Every structure is written in C-alpha cells, then in structure tokens.
C-alpha cells in the first residue's frame, strides 16, 4: 500500500498484482506496507499480522482428522 495526499485520504492498494486507488480516510493508522481490508473502495480495517499468525497457529495445532472418516 502507498499513500497519496488528497481529500478524502487516498492510497493505492495492491491486491496481489492488481492495483486500485482506495480511500484511507477510515484507517488513519494505515502505513505503507500494511495489509488492509477493503470494502467498496474503502479500507475499513488494518490487518493485525500478529493476530493473523496466531489464528493460523491455533488451527495448525489441531489434530488432523482421519480422512476416510470425512469421506474425502
């Protein structure tokens, strides 16, 4: 993400190789390089990388089920 000075506060968000101007007025704390959640052209939340990593750690710590039990 890069920031452009404008009203409303705007920036360019890179969605995996796809870029679009996004309004950052609601995420004043967002800085270049942050991941943001975008809804209809507005960043509504800055992703908390530590919490994201923690969620995945919890999931990965779960015991694996037996595949046949799930019919897969």
């Amino acid at each position, binding site marked *: 993400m890069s920031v452009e000075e404008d*009203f*409303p506060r705007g920036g360019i968000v890179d*969605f*995996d190789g796809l870029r679009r101007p996004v*309004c950052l*007025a*609601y*995420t*004043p704390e967002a800085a270049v390089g942050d*991941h943001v*959640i975008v*809804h*209809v*052209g*507005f960043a*509504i*939340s800055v*992703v*908390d*990388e530590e*919490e*994201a990593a*923690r*969620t*995945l750690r919890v*999931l*990965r710590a*779960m*015991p*694996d*089920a*037996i*595949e046949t*039990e*799930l019919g*897969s």
Partner: protein
Amino acid sequence: MKHLDEYRDPALARRLLGELRATATRPWTVMEVCGGQTHTIVRQGIDELLPAGMRMIHGPGCPVCVTPLEIIDKALAIAARPEVIFTSYGDMLRVPGTSGDLVGLKARGADVRVVYSPLDAVRIARENPEREVVFLAVGFETTAPANAMAVLDAAKTGVTNFSVLVSHVLVPPAITTLLEAPDNQVRAFLAAGHVCAVMGWTEYEPIADHYGVPIVVTGFEPLDLLEGILMAVRQLETGRAVVENQYVRAVRRTGNTAARDAVAQVFRVTDRKWRGIGEIPASGLALDPAFAGFDADRRFATGDIVTRESPACIAGEILRGTRLPTDCQAYGTACTPRTPLGAPMVSSEGTCAAFHNAGRGLELR
C-alpha cells in the same frame, strides 16, 4: 492473496471439521447473518460437511435481498428520467421491482452505470455537471461509511448534482427481531466480520446476554467460517452465551471509530422496512436533515409508488430462516436466477440464488 489463501487450506479445513464433529453432541442450528458468508458456505459446500443434523440457516444479510420494493421502484422511476445518470453496485441492477429492473430500463435507453465505489459516482457527477447523478446507497453497516464519505466529499467539494437514494439497514435490530419470533430455531449466530470491523461488537453483548445466544464475530473465508461455527458450538455445548471474536485479525471490540463518526455525522437511525420481513423499528439509516440536499428521494419527488410482490414468493420466510428455498413451489421452475420472482434469487449472495447456483434440489424439479 496474503490473508486469503491461508484461510482456504483444505488440510486445516479437515482438522476443523474433525474438531467440530468431536465437539457437537446435538444437532445445533446456527445462523450466519451475512450474505458474503452464505456465498462462501454454499460455494464451498461447507454446510454439507457439517456433523449430521447440524444446520446452517442463511440469514437476512444480503443487502440486495432486503432492500424494500419501494426503493427499487423509486430507483426505477428516478433512473428513467432523461437528466439522470443512475449509478449502483452491479448486483442491484437485476433486482425485480414491481414492473421490471434496472437492466431492462437500461436497454430501453436509461443511463444506468455500475460503479465499484460510491466515490466513483461522485467523480461521474463532477465530470458531468449538466447531468444529475444518483447513487443507490444500500447495504449494511459495512457500506454506510463509504456512502457517508461520498456525501461528505460531494458537500466539501461543492458537487451539487449528486444525490443518494438511501436504504441502509442495521444488523442488531434484525437479529433481535429473529430471536423474538415464536418460530425461531436459531441457537447461535455468526456475526458478519466486516460489519463488526466498522461497528465493533458492543451492540451484540446485551443480545447474547438477554436471549442466551452465543454470537461469534466471524470472517468470510472457509477456515474463518468453520472456526466461527466451532466456537459457537463449543459455547452451545458448554451452556455459555457470550460474544466471541473469531476474526481477530480484522475486528476490534469498538470497531472503527473514524468510520462510525462519519456515519453518525451523515446519517441518523430510522425505522426501516425490510423486504420480505416487514418494518423493524430503528433498523435503518436515513440521511441526517443537515444533508437533506443530497436526498434523491426529495430531489426527484418520486411520489406515490404502488408496489406489488409476486404472490408465489416466500422470500420473507427464507430470509427469516423458517423455510428453505427448496420448500418454495416456484424455486427452480417459475423462479430462477434468469427469471427471479424475489430478491433472494437475484444476488449470488441471496439464499435462493446461492442454492440454485450450487444445484441444490434441482434434480427434483
């Protein structure tokens, strides 16, 4: 994409399903409120993998579905005016009004344009000063800050040929209405992560407490949903009923203060009719009188609109979760995504369209 791919990992999905099966001892019924979550659940077939007897009810969280017929008819009346450029999110274009939809109106010459963001509509207004640009401002709390900013932007930069036709809805009053219904079967809710990213979850705490229902703030990816369901079931199994947050990477308890402030500045809470459900007190947002100049409803005085719903459509019961699309006589026959009778068949987030697109129950027709 970062923060998306990880949450679609099939091996982790299998672990969550295993854990869910090990945890659930009863056939719990859980409602996901948001249409985006319904879309993931049906598209990935998550509900088909749940423990036997456990049910997901798809709630009234599709903005396209619950926008009242009067608003669609007003949109059609305004869009038909020659001076108007009518702008909307794409999926509102095929919502059936009493006589036709915006796609059909466009084919008959109306200037109807799809925009990705309401700020794009303001830009179109700026570029076309001789025209009247109207934006159909629908959606839940997630979309309200964007629409608020469009109005603030137009006001600040002196764009006077821009107005909004507002039909915003709010989630907590809808949940309360569902819980008050005598035939309610929902035992726990997955609250919409993006709504809570804006609003936080403090509004849900008294609901969980008063009605004794677990409410889990949940994201939109398959693993988010499975974890949200698991968290709800764990509460149900242990007799707890509190608000928990699965979507910790994006949602904080008090939400997004800047966004809430903008919404509070531009809108005020109002009673709102929900298509298929009826009027719910204090369940919507309307423009604050200070911004009345941007109200398309006033600007174009659409007057008396006579609306008529298809009598065969059971959208109301589907949106309340008391019946399934496959219970509807018209589902897959008179009513298809090609010829929708009711709004839940229009948006791919709508329960009926999600069912139809996944081929549910069609072999019987």
